[in-house]
Every structure is written in C-alpha cells, then in structure tokens.
C-alpha cells in the first residue's frame, strides 16, 4: 500500500507547484493509473515515489514507512521501474539488461541466469533466441517486453511504469496491454502507471487518478469515472462516447447467454439437429465436437435442404467467435465487422460457452448506467 500525504513539489524558478497538495491512497495489488495532459504533474508524482524527485512538502508512505527515512538506493532496488523502450542499456545484452537489479543486489550468477530465462519466458520471448541479443536487434514491442521483464527481475512488490507501451503501434500496444494484464492477474503487484491516453487508463486501471495543473481532479475506479465525471474537465478528457468506452470495462463472459443458440454434437444427423433449431433465436446452431469445442455453424436452410447426413458435413466455419476474456467493446466491433446479430463465445481452450447478442449487450449497458446513477 502506498500513501501520499499532502505531497507538494515546487521546482525552483517556477511560479506554480508541479504537484500541489496531493493526497492519495494506492491499495496493494492494484493498478493505479495517473492520467492527464502533459505538464499536469503525473510523472513528477510517480518519480517522487522512488525519490528520483524529492517532494518539497508532504510525506509518502510505503507499507506505513516514511520513504524519506529509507536509503534512496535501497528504496529503488525494491521498486520496479519501466520507462519507454529507450531506457534499455544499448551496450548490454537483453540478459544483462534484465539482470541489472539482481546484479546490484548481489545475487549469485546461476540464480540470475535462471531468473532471466524465467522472465523472458514470462513476457513471451524465447530465452535461447533473445538472451544474447542487443536491444537494437529487437522490435519496439519486444523492447517494451524486455523493459517490463527488467523491472520485475528482483520481484519487487511495487512497479512504477511511465508510458510503458508508449512507443509502439496501436496493434502491438493492445497486445502488450493484454499480456501485461494477464501477468498482473497472477503477480498482483502494486502498480503506478502513468499515461496520457485515457483509453489506456480505462483499460489498465483498477483506479484512475485524473490530474490537472498538479492537482488531483478525480480519483475513482474506471466505471465510476465514466458514469459520473467530477467536472467538465474530466468529462472532456473522457470524450463524448463514454457509453462505448464502458464496454471496455465489461468482459464478454459477463454478458454471456447460453440459452439463445443451442449446440449440436457434430455426430448427430441433420434430421436430429432440425429438432434443436426451435431453441435457437437466430435459426442457426453451433456445431461442437466430443470435447465441446466449437467447430462451426449450421444454418436452418442448410438443415432443411440437405438429405440426412451428419451435421459435421454441412457445418461451416464463421469468423464471429470471441474468447470469454475479451471485452464487450471487442465483441461489438466483431459484430459490426461481420454484420452479425451475435458472436459465439468460447473459452481459452475453444469450448463453446454461448453467445453475446446485440440485444443483450445494449441491455447490459443500460443496466450499468442505471446502477451508477442510483
């Protein structure tokens, strides 16, 4: 847990304080995103936590201990630090880069090597292939991954991340975000995440701190932020399409309907399948194999027109399939992209779970808004 108490930073030669009387509580194991326009003091706030910048006034406590009383070097060794990809040391190999903190801590060599391989695997880079490369030989996305691995090398309980996915293209960025959220789900680190991108903040944050001119404007979970922005500034920062942004917060599995589109085992005949068709809202059946894995769809017309054959022979694959862990926003874009009223939902292993329909999606958003208003 990190607590900021009346923290103020006044840089010499500037009229206004960069950070003005900040009070914040960051719960353990959560991602707290600091967001705001450039110059709002979000990076300064972050750097005061590992004392790269010393506050002019106020105190910062980590697990109840005043950080000003901890040796700065010791404090930093226990706080992971990620900045944009350029923070990698260009003359050192990937392994040496990741080993930085364990080395400073004096770990034995074989333990360091083992840890490096572990981390490379964790962030999805094959150790044999990447261990001895230099940062310049990697793509932007790979460098960001190494940056994250380096920060986690000595397993610090706290991570500070300053625009960690800032320097990559949007597609890579989304993938890195998803991967990082997956890692975080296991690691449960306390994370301070700085970004200027409100969409990233909504996606990543358990809590979002919106800053402006060194002050904390609103500090709330993303759902609350979207439903009740504190003032006009927050509203403008969030943008006009807040309802659609809310869809980013809800996982597909929360809107899942298992009763609208029955599954038919692939060994059944078309005649048997026809009986199941009554239960389907869309005149379509999902075809599953013995392990309940989705293999395709059959339409009502196909069943009526064909002679008696196993459904596996007439089933057709379809692109409107999504994983249960994806967000409703992704489900919506998929529906719009396929021009379909529904998407089929599968588990990570490919098991058929049910569908999300346009109707159920709208209903859910409506309920959600009502709840927040009440």
């Amino acid at each position, binding site marked *: 847990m990190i607590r900021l108490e009346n923290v103020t930073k006044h840089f010499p030669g500037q009229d206004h304080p960069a950070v003005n009387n900040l009070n914040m509580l960051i719960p353990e194991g959560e991602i707290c995103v600091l967001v705001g326009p450039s110059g709002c003091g979000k990076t300064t706030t972050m750097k005061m936590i590992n004392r*790269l910048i010393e506050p002019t006034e106020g105190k910062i406590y980590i697990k109840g201990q005043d950080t000003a009383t901890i040796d700065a070097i010791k*404090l930093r060794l226990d706080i992971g630090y990620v*900045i944009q990809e350029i*923070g990698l*040391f260009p003359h050192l190999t990937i392994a040496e880069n990741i080993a930085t*903190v364990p080395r400073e801590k004096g770990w034995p060599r074989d333990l360091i090597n083992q840890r490096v391989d572990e981390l490379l695997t964790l962030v999805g880079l094959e150790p044999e292939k990447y261990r001895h490369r230099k940062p310049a030989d990697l793509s932007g996305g790979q460098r960001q991954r190494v940056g994250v691995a380096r920060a986690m090398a000595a397993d610090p309980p706290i991570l500070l991340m300053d625009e960690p996915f800032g320097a990559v293209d949007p597609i890579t960025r989304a993938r890195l975000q998803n991967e990082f959220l997956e890692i975080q789900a296991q690691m449960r680190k306390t994370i301070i995440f700085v970004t200027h991108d409100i969409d990233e903040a909504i996606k990543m944050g358990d809590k979002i701190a919106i800053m402006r001119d060194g002050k904390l404007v609103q500090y709330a979970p993303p759902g609350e932020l979207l439903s009740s922005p504190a003032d006009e500034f927050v509203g403008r920062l969030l943008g006009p399409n807040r309802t659609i942004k809310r869809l980013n917060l809800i996982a597909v599995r929360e809107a899942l309907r298992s009763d609208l589109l029955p599954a038919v085992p692939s060994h059944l005949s078309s005649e048997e399948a026809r009986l199941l068709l009554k239960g389907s809202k869309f005149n379509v059946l999902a075809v599953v194999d013995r392990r309940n894995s989705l293999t395709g769809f059959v339409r009502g017309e196909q069943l009526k027109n064909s002679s008696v054959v196993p459904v596996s022979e007439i089933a057709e694959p379809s692109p409107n399939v999504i994983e249960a862990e994806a967000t409703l926003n992704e489900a919506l874009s998929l529906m719009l992209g396929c021009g379909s009223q529904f998407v089929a939902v599968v588990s990570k292993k490919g098991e058929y779970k049910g569908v999300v329909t346009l109707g159920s999606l709208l209903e859910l958003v409506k309920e959600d808004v009502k709840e927040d208003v009440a």
Partner: protein
Amino acid sequence: MWRKLNRLRTVLVPVILLAAGVSATVYFVENATPMAARLLVYPNVLRVLGQHLLLVLVSSLLAIAAAVPLGIIISRPAFRPVAPVIEGIVNIGQTVPSLAVLALFMTLFGLGFQTAVFALWLYSLLPILRNTYAGMKSIGPEIIEAARGMGMKAHRILSRIELPLAFPIIMAGIRTAVVINVGTATLASFIGAGGLGDFIVTGISLRRTELIYTGAALSALLAIFFDDLLARLEKYV
C-alpha cells in the same frame, strides 16, 4: 571472405608498416651522401626513433591520465555550468602554434626532454578532453534515469553504463591526440629533446634531403602504426 580479409588485415597492417619503415631506412642509409652519412647510421636511427617514441608515449599517457578524468568531472551535473569555460580555456591553448608553445615553455623550464613532454602533453589535452566530455554528454538522459530509477549507485552507473557507452568517442579523441602528437614531437628537436625531428632539422640546415625523408617517413609510419594499434585496442576492449 570479407571477414577473412579483415582478420588478415590485423596482421598485415603492422607487417607492411614495419617493412616500409625498414626498407625506407635501409634505402636512405645505404644511399646517403657523404655529409649525411655521418649522421645517417643505423644506431643513430634507432636512437632518435626511441627518443621519439618515448616523447609520444609519456606525453600521451599523461594526457589521457589528466584529460579523461577531467572530462568526466566536467560532465557531472554539478560542473555542467563551468564545462564550457574549461573547454574554452583548453581550446585557446590549442590555437597557439605548437612551435610557440615549445618556445614559451623553453623560456620557463629550459631545454630538454621534460619541457618537450610538457608542451606535447598540453597539446594533447584538448582532443581527449573534448571527446570525453562529448562522449559522456551523448548518453541519453533517459538511460541514466532508468539506471538511477532502478537503484544503481552513482559509481556503478559511471563504470557500467556511462564509460562503456562513451568509450568509442573517448577512444576517437585519444587516437586524434596521439596521431597529432607523433607529428608535433618532431618539433621537440628545436629545444634539444631529440626524436625524429633531429634528422629533419639537421637535414634542412645541411640541405640533405635523405635526412629529411628518413625523419618524415618514419614519423608518418609511426603515426599510422599508433592509429591502427589504438583502433584495434578499441575493438578488443
């Protein structure tokens, strides 16, 4: 094939330089005119070559020992404001003609080896200092910040991050300084410090071109040799 050629080069360059030096020396010694022949004998060639080497080595090593630490110190944030002043002073020193520097220090310290070494040392400072400072400043502030943010101590950042990154630029400065030094050291003869300049100066006054050629050829080959040696040292480290 190119790699093979490159590896061959590392052996070939010194061999070619040595062969060129030896054959030039033999040619001029064997074909010396009577007046030059008294000076142009093998023991004499070796003696002035040794003097020359000593002048260059001592002054260059002392210059490295002084300029690299100074360059590091003025690149520290605390000294950033005075860095241009120090660079300026050393810069002005460089604009004074080398012969004038020698003459000036001769009036202060007298004739001989020490005065020559001092003047050469002073003259070598600038390229090394300037490159050390430039090398340290060329490192992106975000790299230093990442290192600090991860809890590296200042001296560890210097030895593990800053110096290795600045090393090629520092080395380039040292190479420039040493190459200039080999040439400038021929002037040491004017204040009686010996070296290959002895042949050139005597050759001019006696109008014996073979003496001038020997001194000039050997000092030029020596400069190339040092440049190559330092280039290889840089890759090796």
